[in-house]
């Protein structure tokens, strides 16, 4: 009896020891470089996370298929470790911590949404580990919040909110010849909030007038009161800097109230899910985006073809930006003298121009924000079609 009992007690311990031996961090193949990815697989924007994961896996498969990366005369394979952050700030910070301290990755790609990218970037900066966010446009992601100077270890592959606000404000005034705009935004989400505020600022600087500036909170489903207020203010356009899932609800409720003015969106609209959720309510709407699949460069066409072949759909902008973030990271690894965190970060800062799928990416010295152009897209049927390019 006693013996059997002690065996039962020992069994799990034994099993745990075997399991631990299997994933001993020092026992991993010395010829691989570990790269972490933090993506929004569950939560409010699963389409964003799925695109990002797909593109990261494609980039890694391609570089390993080509033999790997040569650093200091030695060839390494890339190993991708994917973490889900559930599109939440706390889980993003936890995922960054795990990748840095437990999995000992060389660098991290992601998170995509600013609400997760900002806390993850804080962790990366504190641990002196390179983090490249593909899609986070909020200025705070790459800025040190206490000093206001740029972070040293955080870079992004996309443009920033102030630029996007300027592009949209100019487009509305110059091309749509509209004078007044209304804004409805999520006051509890980082990117939409900063886009709304920066849009109002630049739109009014350019001579427009924001006649209604209304907010809601993450998780709200009823926007009828705000929309009635907006309708009675009679704006020429309505700017909705929300993620695609909220836009689906807001646009339908606006149309049901008889609001028939042009809707304007941010880059958070670009998921193909938007058209399904909005059921025609966003037809004809314009939004700013990072790239247009139908006006791409040869390098971009190659990526689009490979992505379509592997996943059976056209890559959205999150996919393209994740692919570029991975490309930037590989370029930095190639230029680094050794596959170590500090060396990779220094090599990243030294990249003067990278020909990405989403256009030329140039970093201004001392900053993790690239200088790059945006595109304006229009919703037509279930497609997004290219309208114009906007240079920085």
């Amino acid at each position, binding site marked *: 009896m006693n013996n059997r009992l002690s065996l039962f007690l020992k069994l799990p311990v034994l099993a745990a020891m075997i399991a631990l031996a299997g994933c001993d961090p020092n026992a991993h193949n010395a010829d691989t470089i570990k790269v972490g990815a933090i993506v929004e697989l569950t939560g409010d924007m699963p389409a964003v996370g799925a695109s990002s994961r797909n593109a990261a896996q494609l980039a890694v498969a391609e570089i390993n298929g080509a033999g790997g990366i040569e650093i200091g005369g030695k060839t390494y394979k890339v190993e991708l470790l994917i973490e889900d952050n559930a599109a939440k700030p706390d889980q993003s910070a936890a995922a960054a911590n795990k990748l840095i301290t437990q999995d000992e990755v060389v660098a991290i790609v992601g998170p995509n949404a600013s609400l997760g990218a900002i806390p993850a970037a804080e962790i990366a900066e504190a641990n002196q580990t390179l983090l490249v966010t593909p899609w986070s446009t909020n200025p705070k992601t790459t800025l040190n919040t206490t000093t206001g100077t740029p972070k040293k270890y955080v870079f992004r592959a996309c443009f920033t909110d102030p630029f996007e606000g300027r592009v949209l404000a100019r487009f509305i005034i110059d091309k749509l010849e509209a004078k007044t705009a209304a804004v409805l935004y999520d006051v509890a989400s980082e990117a939409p909030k900063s886009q709304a505020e920066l849009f109002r600022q630049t739109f009014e600087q350019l001579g427009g007038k924001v006649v209604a500036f209304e907010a809601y909170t993450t998780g709200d489903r009823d926007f009828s009161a705000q929309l009635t207020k907006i309708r009675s203010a009679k704006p020429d356009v309505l700017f909705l800097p929300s993620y695609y899932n909220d836009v689906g609800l807001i646009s339908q409720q606006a149309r*049901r109230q*008889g609001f028939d003015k042009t809707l304007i969106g941010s880059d958070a609209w670009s998921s193909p899910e938007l058209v*399904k959720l909005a059921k025609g309510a966003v037809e004809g709407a314009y939004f700013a985006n990072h790239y247009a699949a139908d006006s791409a460069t040869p390098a971009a066409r190659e990526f689009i073809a490979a992505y379509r072949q592997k996943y059976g759909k056209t890559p959205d902008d999150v996919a393209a930006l994740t692919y570029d973030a991975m490309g930037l990271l590989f370029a930095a690894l190639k230029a680094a003298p050794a596959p170590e965190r500090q060396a990779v970060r220094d090599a990243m800062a030294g990249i003067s121009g990278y020909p990405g799928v989403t256009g030329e990416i140039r970093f201004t010295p001392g900053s993790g924000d690239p200088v790059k152009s945006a595109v304006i897209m229009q919703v037509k049927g279930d497609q997004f079609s290219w309208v114009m390019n906007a240079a920085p």
Partner: protein
Amino acid sequence: MSEVSIYWLQQVLNALQLSSIYALIALGYSMVYGILTMINFAHGDVFMVGAFLCFLAATLLDLPFVPTLLLTMTGAALLGVLIERLAYKPLRNAPRVSAIITALGVGLFLENLTLAFYPYPQNVPTLIENINWDLGGVSLSSLQLIIISLSLTLMLVLDYVVQRTPVGMAMRAISWDKTYVPLMGVPVDLIISITFAIGAALAGAAGTMYALAYPVIDPYMGIMVGWKAFIAAVVGGIGNMRGAMIGAFILGGVEIMVVAVLPSTYRDLVVFSLLLALIVIRPHGILGQPRVQKV
């Protein structure tokens, strides 16, 4: 009509739509409290399951609106009875805290069960063709009309059942006295089951209408809506059914009107402060009667 009156009429319509959904859910809280003096915290999640049943009926079975609604209400009613029989009945004589904790557990179970099947938000198809009527500048949609009229009908039917039928009389009798009423031949277990079935069916109807009005649904959607409906029931006087309806219309009305007058950023702060003040002035709610603790 002047622009100001158009604006206010439109906001009144918005408030009516939101309030009628709150009212249907609030009734379930109030009915169960009335009969068992227990707060059924799983009720918001029954509402969520209702929305998912509507989604399933509309996508898998391809049903139109009326059969979807009936199927959802039946499914939710069965769920309500099942929860009562399996989770609450064994605890009927246990301390009230045990029942409340069990209710919270049932709610978590329903959320995570749904999450296991649908980890991503789901998109509910359009079951009611969208028609917009322009009434002198005020815009009324077919969906709004159906939600408001259907909720009012259900509330009137319930009021009739509770006030005028033998079943309703039995419900009121049990909530008044649980010791002697069974001796008069009233089948207590059956009446309690009927109460749960009616409450859950109303939550199912609310779930259907919510899923059609706000067609992106997820397993956690019942939490916030459930809380708000619970607050509405408390404001109206929990245990009192007419009070639950009045409380829901006050809550929905205040929510919409605060946004209509003040910057929308302050909505929840103002709404909940006002309700708190109301509770301070009338601790038992608008129609609630103070209960005397019998020793």
